[in-house]
């Protein structure tokens, strides 16, 4: 951690330093320090209202911190102008909790939206890229799926369409906002597999915020815990399992998903 975060690093893609954010009198982030590793699945866990979503919004430049720095590939993104931040935002794809698909657009239009907004590409090329993604995410098999509207899709399908929309512009970093919230165990497992496969197939850096412990220990390469506005523990999954921080240990064991001492269940 003593090295210079403003230099591009082969291992760490995002480096967060001393990030503070308050809303009125409420201090949400109180000096977050965290490194996100390139090409792997980084999971940030924490209870409700601990500032996970706020942290995530800072990563994409959707929110400005009170103080602190965020370096993406060595570039400090805090205080950048509209154009520069838009350039940084192109490195990111975000998968929202409930997909956040645009109601007024059908599946193809939703997935193509980032391309159509950012570039002047020929329609045929956009459509080919959308179809290619639909196939890779196992969405192409359903008949007439392209012309369906979000309201006609199931929760799991919406999530995959949301993922397709996040992937269409070939981002380097994918952010997932509580991807398994509100899903049954089977659907949760499917989403876990989807995250794993996406990380492997597309080679993206994944940042997942979650309070689902079972998922976290199933797919997370690196795990960090946000508690009362600071990162209380972070490291490789086996490091976390071998020497858990007391707060993290309580949080995880209460969930019943993982038991320490004997390794992951």
């Amino acid at each position: 951690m003593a090295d210079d975060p403003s230099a591009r690093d082969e291992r760490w893609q995002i480096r967060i330093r001393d990030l503070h954010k308050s809303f009125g009198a409420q201090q949400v982030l109180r000096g977050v320090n965290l490194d996100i590793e390139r090409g792997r699945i980084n999971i940030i866990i924490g209870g409700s209202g601990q500032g996970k979503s706020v942290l995530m919004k800072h990563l994409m430049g959707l929110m400005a911190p009170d103080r602190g720095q965020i370096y993406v590939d060595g570039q400090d993104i805090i205080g950048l102008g509209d154009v520069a931040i838009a350039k940084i935002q192109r490195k990111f794809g975000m998968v929202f909790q409930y997909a956040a698909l645009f109601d007024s657009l059908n599946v193809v239009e939703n997935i193509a939206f980032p391309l159509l907004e950012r570039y002047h590409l020929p329609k045929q090329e956009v459509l080919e890229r959308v179809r290619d993604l639909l196939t890779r995410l196992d969405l192409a098999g359903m008949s007439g799926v392209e012309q369906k509207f979000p309201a006609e899709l199931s929760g799991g399908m919406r999530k995959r369409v949301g993922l397709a929309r996040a992937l269409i512009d070939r981002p380097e970093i994918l952010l997932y906002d509580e991807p398994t919230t509100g899903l049954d165990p089977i659907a949760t497992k499917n989403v876990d597999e989807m995250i794993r496969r996406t990380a492997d197939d597309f080679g993206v850096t994944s940042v997942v915020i979650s309070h689902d412990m079972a998922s976290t220990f199933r797919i997370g390469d690196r795990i960090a815990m946000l508690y009362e506005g600071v990162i209380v523990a972070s490291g490789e999954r086996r490091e976390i399992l071998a020497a858990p921080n007391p707060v993290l240990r309580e949080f995880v064991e209460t969930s019943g998903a993982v038991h320490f001492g004997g390794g992951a269940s």
Partner: protein
Amino acid sequence: MTAPAATPTGAGSPPELAPGRGFRPLAAVGRLFAPLPGAVALFGEHIILLARALIWLFRRPFRLRLFLDQMEFVGVGSLPIIMLVGFFTGAVTALQAILALSLFEQQRYVGFGVGISLARELAPVFTALMVTARAGSGMATELASMRITEQVDALTTFAVNPVQYLVSPRLVASALMLPVLCMVFNILGLIGGYVVAIISYQIDLGQVLELFRHGVDPIDYIQGLIKAFFFGVTMATCSCYQGLNVRGGAKEVGLATTRAVVSTSVTVLVLDYLLIQIMNVLFPYGGM
């Protein structure tokens, strides 16, 4: 709520109710105006949203389709209700005018009365209120749902400015379509008035038309249309503001819609008064 370092008043008696030694008129006046800073801030936030929507209007990319979609929603979608309300407003105005004028045996002036009240007042205000109930509430609900389902955040992640994408088209569509709808209201209102004149009472129809033509000036229509333009701006601003600033769930979406309709309606009526005062200076009223 008690102010610090107050003069001791009788135990258990709130200072508001004890106009004795403890009553401080300045504090009472202060309490009366306590909501004022909040109201001023709210007004300011509306103006800021309006200014941002106007600035983003002239920045690339221009998405013509969004503007046309909104014009269809505000304009074409509101046409049936405006025609219906316009017709009956004209009819009712004529009915009442005939009753009043019959006291002086001057029923023939009904064309003038209906024409001028529609052009200057009824058409712009009723159009604004009807379109607010229909399209303004729709805008607030749509934007509020988009906000709580994170669709607005999603726009931002694709480097799309939500004000440019969502507010500017609604603003332009409302500002352009309200005058058009107002004119439709005028026409249907006159037809309604004329029908009443025909079927209900024995009036010389030639005189109705003639007095209408001579009594109502194009400037009366222009004034009405200018008002409708500003009412359109008001409606889009209030509705989009309430929609975009919602927090929470389904209940808050409903509340945002209610607030949008109420704040637009009140603002339209207050603005109406101010615009009349301004336009009376700009276009001195000549009457007949």
